[in-house]
């Protein structure tokens, strides 16, 4: 018999995890260098979802950039909106009315609960507890329906506005939410019965991804990821915004800094959020929901109603004497109902006119006049009527309309300066850094995304563990790649 001698050698194995991997919560790609089944090195690659929100924000006015913030952390878009409007309000130097502040606190905490529910659902699913997933989505659905009730959207809400909120909340919403807060603590207990003392859950989470308090601070971690290590840093307490200084709540912190402690922190945080919502509903003061600062905020549209409402039968007419023939209205008209040559008085073809008032706000020479109830009349008759002064109500509305138009076009006049404002979103500290140069657009808009910082700590947390634990670590730092890549 012939003896065959084989030489066995060991070498590191490279494994590509992602970008399309169900457990990476988005498009995160990890290159794992493995020694057997132990992780020797992790290299994260991000940027697959980079949309240049910072660059886009610099090209839009302060109001227009708000919907972009929804698309960052799409799981808790409400908190992102609040972070943005709080920062812009600080930059403008305006303050939202009390009621708006309380409403924003309520919806912010709702968004925290819905985010934590989604986090718990997917985290448990990754580790192998399927039932929790279904239970969590039941409650999350309730919250999303409540969001739909106040703003019509479930995920990308854009409900808060600079200077307040879009509209007041209906009583129906408050009733349903109050009922939710009554039932929710028992629901949390349900989840906890499933996994809190579960042996598999404990095996998969205790002692995994341990980080000490000093190191966690040094890495810039925030939110529950930091508090799991025992650092009581919460922006809601350290720099209170909205109504957080008027409600009573505690900050849960862990001791070990492992995956299990971070899980416990988030569970307790949901109870605290529940408590905050209850208090806010009980204390909710009456009053307006939009700040009275016409130089900085968009005012309600109904002030312009006498002119712009489709049922108003106004006609627009060009006064021949005043028209200089500049062609501004001709270019602006969406229906192409204005005719005329350059430097000669223009005319409106009344059959084509939509009555949208675009020409009225563009005219700089006050040649355009409104003729109340003039729809369908001949040009001679309109010329006759145009000479009479406008009724007071319409004169006021027209003045407002022109001002509003100018405001939208130029944006608010913002003082020169720079500002960094942080808010506590469910994932951690969301910071907005604005540099203003006095125009209606930010000169520099910087977003400090918690997911970005947390993804950076992945190599530190997962080295030395097994491959399956990387999944647990990705879950525990709670990242969303839309926010990470911006």
């Amino acid at each position, binding site marked *: 018999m012939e003896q065959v001698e084989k030489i066995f050698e060991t070498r590191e194995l490279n494994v590509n995890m992602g970008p399309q991997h169900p457990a990476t919560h988005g498009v995160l790609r990890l290159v794992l260098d493995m020694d057997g089944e132990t992780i020797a090195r992790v290299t994260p690659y991000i940027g697959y979802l980079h949309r240049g929100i*910072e660059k886009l924000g610099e090209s839009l006015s302060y109001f227009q950039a708000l919907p972009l913030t929804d698309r960052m952390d799409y799981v808790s878009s409400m908190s992102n909106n609040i972070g943005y409007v709080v920062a812009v309000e600080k930059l403008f130097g305006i303050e939202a009315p009390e009621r708006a502040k309380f409403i924003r606190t309520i919806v912010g905490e709702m968004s925290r609960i819905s985010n934590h529910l989604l986090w718990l659902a997917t985290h448990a699913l990754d580790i192998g507890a399927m039932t929790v997933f279904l239970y969590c989505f039941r409650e999350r659905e309730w919250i999303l329906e409540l969001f739909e009730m106040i703003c019509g959207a479930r995920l990308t809400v854009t409900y808060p506005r600079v200077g307040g909120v879009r509209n007041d909340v209906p009583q129906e919403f408050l009733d349903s939410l109050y009922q939710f807060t009554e039932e929710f603590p028992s629901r949390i207990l349900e989840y906890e019965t499933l996994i809190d003392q579960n042996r598999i859950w404990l095996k998969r989470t205790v002692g995994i991804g341990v980080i000490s308090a000093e190191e966690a*601070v040094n890495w810039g971690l925030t939110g529950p990821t930091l508090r799991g290590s025992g650092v009581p840093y919460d922006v809601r307490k350290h720099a209170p915004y909205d109504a957080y200084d008027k409600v009573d709540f505690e900050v849960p912190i*862990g001791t070990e800094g492992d995956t299990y402690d971070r899980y416990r922190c988030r569970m307790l945080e949901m109870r605290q959020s529940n408590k905050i919502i209850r208090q806010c509903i009980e204390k909710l003061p009456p009053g307006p929901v939009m700040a009275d600062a016409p130089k900085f905020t968009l005012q309600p549209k109904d002030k312009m109603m006498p002119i712009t409402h489709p049922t108003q039968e106004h006609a627009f007419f060009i006064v021949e004497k005043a028209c200089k023939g500049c062609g501004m209205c001709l270019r602006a008209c969406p229906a192409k109902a204005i005719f005329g040559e350059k430097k000669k008085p223009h005319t409106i073809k009344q059959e084509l006119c939509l009555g949208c008032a675009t020409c009225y706000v563009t005219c700089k020479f006050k040649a355009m006049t409104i003729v109340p109830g003039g729809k369908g009349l001949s040009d001679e008759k309109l010329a006759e009527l145009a000479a009479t002064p406008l009724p007071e109500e319409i004169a006021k509305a027209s003045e407002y309309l022109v001002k509003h138009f100018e405001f939208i076009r130029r944006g608010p006049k913002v003082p020169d300066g720079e*500002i960094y404002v942080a808010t506590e979103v469910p994932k951690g500290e969301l910071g907005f850094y604005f540099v203003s*140069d006095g125009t209606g657009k930010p000169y520099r808009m*910087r977003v400090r995304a918690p997911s*970005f910082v947390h993804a950076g*700590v992945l190599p530190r947390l997962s080295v030395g563990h097994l491959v399956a634990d990387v999944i647990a670590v990705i879950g525990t730092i709670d990242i969303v790649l839309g926010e990470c890549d*911006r």
Partner: protein
Amino acid sequence: MAVVEVRISLPYKGMDPTEIAEKIKEKFPDEVVDVTNFRDQVSVIVKKDRIVDICRYLHNDPLLLFDHLQDLCGVDYHGKKDPRFEVVYNLYSIRHHHKIRVRAQVPENDPNIRTVTSIWAGANWHERECFDMFGIVFKGHPDLRRILLPEDWEGYPLRKDYPLKGPEPEKDWHGFIEVLNRSKELKEFEWEE
């Protein structure tokens, strides 16, 4: 394995930011260029040469203890200021509850600055992003690669002279052009209407 709930006693304000600025001025008189104050947020504008010393002082001094680097980012003042770039450090002390902003000036030709990763480990990715977006080189950085954009991307998008719509179609990133060509090739297999 025990989680406790704590009540953070507030309001507790740390040192006044103007006082901190005075302290930095005292310690590094030649480095501080200017101190600005806007809406109670104080920023100290410094030269870039001794930035690591300044940061280490802020991090280690027992009265200051800026242990939390909130944010690190670049700003491009193209045609507005000279030197053109600034690297902004937003610092916060979790222990003492006070904050300060340090802005280091970086010139346009050969933009570089020393890294602060030895002080705050979290600065690692922020500095990579700043390099990616502005082309500011962080000397001594352990792993200075592009982070959000592809590694062979040309140009630095957040600079003010970079077009908003990106590069010209023919000069676009080769990966994108490949995708476009591939979609053209696959067009013939589409369903006919």
